């Protein structure tokens, strides 16, 4: 099959490799008018309240290559009505959302109703709305309000509303409802955003936003009515597909093969990513990157894996370095050898170990820059490998070279806010107040026995702080 091209008013997606439309790795270019072009497969950086966590805007512009932003509308919903994001004064063509979060003009912005990963909400979705978690509590986001937001906030890409059940497996009846509701949401959205049947006086200005229709994390058979409709009636207005599990990659109908596929899943690490790419994923989300940065773990892998000098692989390498480890306390080497990221150019492992121990925010900022850089290089390697036609072999040698799991989290991360907390049992971190209680007790004891307690010379000298009297 020849390389395909999908084109809408504002977006062009060209598949550069001639291969089967689904279930195979593919190279693509996603071009949005006036924005940076994305070479796929690539990842979409996740944001929180309009920022890539820990990376200040100036550092993001100067020292990272992040070239798109995934934004959850729920981060912008406040008690006020309308929320501030809708009030910012803009010119005709400006996106209020872009302006509100102070993103550069060329940054592709992808709007979704919810953050990713989304936190399960106790309220249920309804036929006309979905439950969301804002920083001021749970709310319902009505479908029409989301459409209004797409129209007014003018993101480059909008991910359609879907009835997704988070945190548990939906039952049979619920699954049927998911399909019905999502089908209805999509039909309604496309009609209202792009439709012709809307009477002229009610019709809003045509939107410049590319609409990515959701594909539910269900079997093909269960959502066949919806997928059929996507292929026929709705296809003309759909610019891409948003998938919620990698299994969905295998279910995409051939006639939708020219659409870009954004996979909203939670890969456990690079091995999962390679699988998703090999199934034809174009745009991927990587929650593990931020989790590693928070945990003090620097990613350390390349694709294709650098071939071992000795020829044979003795022991699989770790995928990252835990900088909480005391082994790094005096280690003045870069996070990854030869890494060109800001953090590696400027700092060494010993500094990270110190920053983590001192609970300094800079640790997370610098690690985040490093970890995203590792992913930039990784995806560039993936694209080269597909281009060369060696992807399959490269994946095999990668899985031989590296262990399967990312390092275990050992240290504490930043304090988490309610809207950042994941489902299930979680800890906000140990109690920090009252930690001197123990000390004062010891002091009282020592004072009662000896007037001025003598220093334990050996231990404290080692500490280098105070010692021998």
């Amino acid at each position, binding site marked *: 099959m020849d390389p395909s091209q999908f084109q809408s008013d504002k977006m062009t997606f060209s598949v550069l490799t001639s291969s089967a439309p689904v279930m195979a790795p593919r190279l693509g270019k996603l071009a949005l008018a006036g924005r940076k072009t994305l070479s796929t497969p690539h990842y979409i950086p996740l944001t929180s309240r309009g920022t890539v966590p820990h990376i200040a805007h100036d550092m993001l512009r100067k020292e990272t290559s992040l070239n798109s932003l995934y934004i959850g509308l729920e981060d912008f919903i406040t008690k006020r009505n309308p929320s501030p994001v809708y009030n910012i004064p803009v010119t005709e063509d400006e996106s209020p959302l872009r302006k509100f979060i102070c993103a550069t003009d060329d940054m592709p912005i992808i709007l979704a109703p919810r953050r990713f990963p989304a936190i399960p909400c106790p309220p249920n979705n309804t036929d006309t709305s979905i439950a969301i978690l804002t920083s001021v509590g749970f709310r319902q986001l009505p479908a029409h309000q989301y459409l209004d937001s797409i129209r007014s906030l003018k993101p480059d890409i909008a991910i359609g509303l879907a009835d997704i059940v988070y945190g548990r497996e939906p039952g049979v009846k619920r699954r049927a409802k998911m399909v019905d509701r999502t089908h209805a949401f999509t039909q309604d959205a496309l009609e209202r955003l792009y439709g012709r049947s809307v009477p002229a006086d009610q019709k809003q200005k045509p939107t410049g936003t590319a609409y990515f229709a959701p594909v539910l994390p269900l079997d093909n058979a269960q959502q066949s009515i919806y997928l059929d409709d996507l292929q026929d009636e709705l296809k003309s207005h759909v610019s891409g597909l948003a998938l919620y599990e990698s299994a969905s990659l295998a279910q995409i109908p051939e006639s939708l093969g020219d659409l870009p596929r954004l996979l909203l899943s939670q890969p456990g690490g690079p091995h999962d990513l390679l699988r998703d790419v090999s199934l034809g994923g174009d745009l991927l989300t990587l929650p593990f990157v931020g989790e590693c940065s928070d945990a003090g773990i620097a990613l350390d892998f390349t694709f294709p894996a650098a071939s071992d000098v000795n020829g044979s692989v003795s022991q699989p390498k770790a995928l990252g370095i835990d900088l909480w480890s005391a082994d790094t306390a005096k280690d003045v080497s870069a996070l990854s050898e030869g890494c060109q990221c800001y953090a590696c150019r400027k700092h060494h492992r010993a500094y990270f170990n110190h920053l983590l121990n001192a609970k300094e925010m800079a640790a997370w900022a610098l690690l985040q820059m490093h970890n995203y850089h590792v992913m930039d290089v990784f995806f560039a390697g993936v694209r080269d490998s597909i281009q060369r036609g060696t992807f399959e072999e490269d994946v095999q040698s990668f899985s031989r070279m590296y262990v399967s799991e990312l390092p275990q989290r050992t240290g504490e991360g930043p304090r988490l806010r309610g809207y950042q907390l994941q489902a299930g049992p979680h800890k906000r971190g140990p109690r920090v107040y009252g930690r001197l209680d123990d000390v004062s007790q010891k002091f009282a004891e020592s004072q009662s026995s000896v007037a001025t307690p003598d220093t334990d010379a050996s231990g404290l000298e080692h500490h280098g702080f*105070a010692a021998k009297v």
Partner: protein
Amino acid sequence: MSADAQLKAMPSALTLHHHAKCSTTKARASTLDLPHGSVPLPIFMPVATQASLKGLTYDQLRDTGCMLCLNNTYHLGLKPGQEVLDAVGGAHKLQGWDRNLLTDSGGFQMVSLLKLATVTEEGVRFLSPHDGSPMLLTPEHSISLQNSIGSDIIMQLDDVIATTSPDHARIKEAMERSVRWLDRCIDAHKNPETQNLFCIIQGGLDLELRKQCCAEMVARDTPGIAIGGLSGGEAKEEFCKVVDTCTGLLPEHKPRYVMGVGYPEDIVVAVALGADMFDCVWPTRTARFGNAIVSAGTINLRNSSYANDFSPIEEGCTCTCCRPTDQGGLGLTKAYMHHVTAKETVGAHLLTVHNVHYMLTLMGAARQAIIEDRYPAFIRKFFSDIYQGDKTKYPEWAVGALRGVGMDLLED
């Protein structure tokens, strides 16, 4: 106790070039050449307590124009500790900062962080806040640690007590002990050619004690001189008297550092009293609480009144955050800062950038005013901006202190 107890001549790793002196007040504009670059004086020094300025990268700090920042010996001594500092090759290398560093001696933290510290002639006895083990910090330890840190300016260990202490005998003892400890510090200092040891004038709010201390310490000829023991909650009138008295006795050719100060108003007045260097955690700490320093005072961006305010944090501010995008800035709005402040670490980073830049710009403007011999007019404008021109609201301590150096703040 006398000056002829002096043990060795002090080499100096700094030079101070005077550019101008205010013809009315005692304000001075100069340039301080240190091993890691030149610092324009008067200057505010942001505090990177634990070898990191609260989430900023050192390029962000550099962008604010900062040439000299602080580390705390107390904190670096506990984490990462001397062994690591030696292995890494000092604090510059630890944190990747190639401009100047100043470290305090750890004495102040001992007193302010640990209510459980006791001071003896030997040194400060305290319990490690991390494992509870009893420790003794001597002047020798402090200098040894600061030698390992490798900071460009190091401070003597002093006997710090609250200025508000009613115990006059204890204040006198602390002053005299600080002089004795200075001798021990000078003696223990291994790198006088590359690190500048500053003495710290003590003596509480007693001007007689301060005078005695100045005489003793000036005789010891350290490269620079600090006025310590302030910023402990004393009345501002008293604070100004102490600074004024000390600067009157200090040699012209040495930098004068008022420790732990502070608020823009305090600094602007203290500059008029002849001080050159200031440090305080307030601008960076308050940033993390959502407060932005602006010419009209401070504003708390968490306040809901800013939720729909789409103007920059301060109109005309040249910091990376406030500068419009067409001038290479980020063009951030109050509304967006309201959206992220106290919710995302990035909010703290950005406000810290703004506040540090504000303080450094304020100092730069003060310096320029001194050079152009219009510092009194600068001070009047500064107070007028804060109090919207309402002279009845001007703080009496500032009016009094400035009158003492020949300037009427209330004049038009």
